[in-house]
């Protein structure tokens, strides 16, 4: 990526709290036009919370932003009124969530839901845009699909519809939060390939959230590793995979089951992510880290 260009999205020192509990700490990252940027980490590390804060999708009223800024296409999204952010969310930033069944309205036909997604486009382009996306997503009989309801389709098909909806208004950023986790392993590649090819065709950037280092390795241009509400390491995919610096990154790479590995190659990370109320100023990974030293308690070394 050309780092001299201005980033599409620039998140600076973003901290989110639920009630009075801070769950993320000064998260900063940039996403450039057309790239795939991944936030990687286990459940409960603050990946989704950080991503959902960008388009103003934190649960109301418990979730709130303590400090930070989110610059997107020249605007600080955190300062926009809820009315103005509606011009960004869905239109300039699309979302793809984990559970396609829950993302779609069960009592509204697929066609109507797609039409809703293209409402930002000029009237004469709407139908064409839907057909174009459905065709590219591999639907052979779009007329039938438009008439069907979510329960009539499989998880993989629904996720493709969700991707079409997210892309329909020609956004410049897609937030994909674990888009393949709820889908069969053999379909995961197909869904990710579709998302990647559609986005690269239209130069749309992707913020991909995943716990799966293999997925990040295959698709991301850059990776930020998150642990316990903080970004612990950020870099190009090659750097992160080949020369991981933080012990947590190494640990995440050691739990990926791949062909030819034995159970002994799979090294579980002992324990679990600490509760936000136990977050302190030391290295938060030290309780699970085999390299932990006394200094880690007050001074994160890595």
């Amino acid at each position, binding site marked *: 990526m050309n780092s001299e260009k201005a980033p599409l999205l620039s998140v600076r020192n973003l901290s989110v709290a639920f009630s009075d509990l801070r769950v993320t700490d000064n998260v900063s990252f940039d996403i450039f036009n057309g790239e795939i940027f991944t936030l990687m980490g286990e459940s409960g590390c603050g990946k989704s919370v950080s991503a959902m804060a960008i388009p103003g999708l934190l649960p109301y009223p418990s979730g709130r932003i303590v400090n930070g800024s989110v610059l997107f296409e020249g605007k600080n999204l955190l300062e926009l009124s809820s009315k103005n952010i509606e011009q960004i969310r869905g239109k300039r930033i699309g979302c793809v969530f984990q559970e396609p069944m829950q993302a779609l309205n069960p009592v509204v036909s697929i066609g109507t839901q797609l039409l809703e997604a293209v409402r930002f486009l000029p009237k004469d382009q709407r139908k064409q845009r839907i057909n174009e996306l459905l065709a590219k997503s591999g639907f052979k009989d779009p007329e039938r699909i438009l008439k069907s309801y979510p329960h009539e389709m499989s998880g993989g098909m629904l996720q493709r519809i969700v991707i079409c909806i997210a892309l329909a208004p020609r956004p410049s950023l897609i937030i994909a939060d674990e888009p393949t986790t709820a889908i069969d392993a053999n379909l995961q590649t197909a869904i990710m390939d579709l998302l990647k090819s559609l986005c690269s065709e239209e130069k749309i950037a992707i913020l991909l959230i995943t716990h*799966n280092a293999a997925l990040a390795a295959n698709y991301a241009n850059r990776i930020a590793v998150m642990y316990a509400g903080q970004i612990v390491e950020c870099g190009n995919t090659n750097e992160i995979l080949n020369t991981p610096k933080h012990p947590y990154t190494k640990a995440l790479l*050691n739990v990926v089951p791949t062909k030819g590995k034995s159970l002994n190659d799979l090294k579980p990370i002992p324990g679990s992510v600490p509760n936000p109320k136990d977050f302190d100023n030391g290295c938060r990974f030290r309780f699970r880290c085999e390299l932990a030293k006394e200094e880690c308690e007050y001074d994160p070394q890595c």
Partner: protein
Amino acid sequence: MILNVEKLSVTFRSKGGVVYALKNVCFSLNEGEVLGVAGESGSGKSTIANALVGLAPWEPGGVYNLFGERVKKKKKKSFAIVRKKIQMAFQDPYSSLNPRSTVLEIITTPLIARGISKNEAIAKAKKMLDLVGLSNADANKFPHAFSGGQRQRIGLARALVLEPKILICDEITSALDLSVQAQILHLLNDLRKELNLSLIFISHDIAVMEIISDRIMHLKNGASSAEQE
């Protein structure tokens, strides 16, 4: 060979007529072995698990031998005997535990149903909690207090407390993070050695399956298409 199944067929009736969820599936399981069952959604993996414990109806003509004895599939009682030998652990740790029971109640319920005294049941349950890596302090908590991986440990404890010979694991790691999946796979392997278990490991993830299984059966549209070592 401790389990042998021949010509297992299961049908469901739908608007369009009779649908075969499984058609003439044959397989066997040796003592101490891990048999992987792979296939896409809808290929009939879970139906195999259900048929083995009598939760899905067998079509006539199937043969089911368990520890050298023929299971009479028409009698409900015969499956009660089967379930002494075979237990199951499920995919979704969030929906397979009763939210209103404590962990201790969840694990002792099957024992008490078997007619074991309450004190003995509690002793067994606590021993099992220790074995799956949970502490005694966890016994009086409710399921919502646990993470997905811990809930999966509770599910394993509930299945194993009855001392089955065969454990069916139906997608037990599919809803978990990879880091937790690795923990559970190691736990499963330790338990298998400790308790001398044979496993039927159902998953859609071939990579996981190759790591844990001795032998893999591939299912496609209700028929077993290939077996590999």
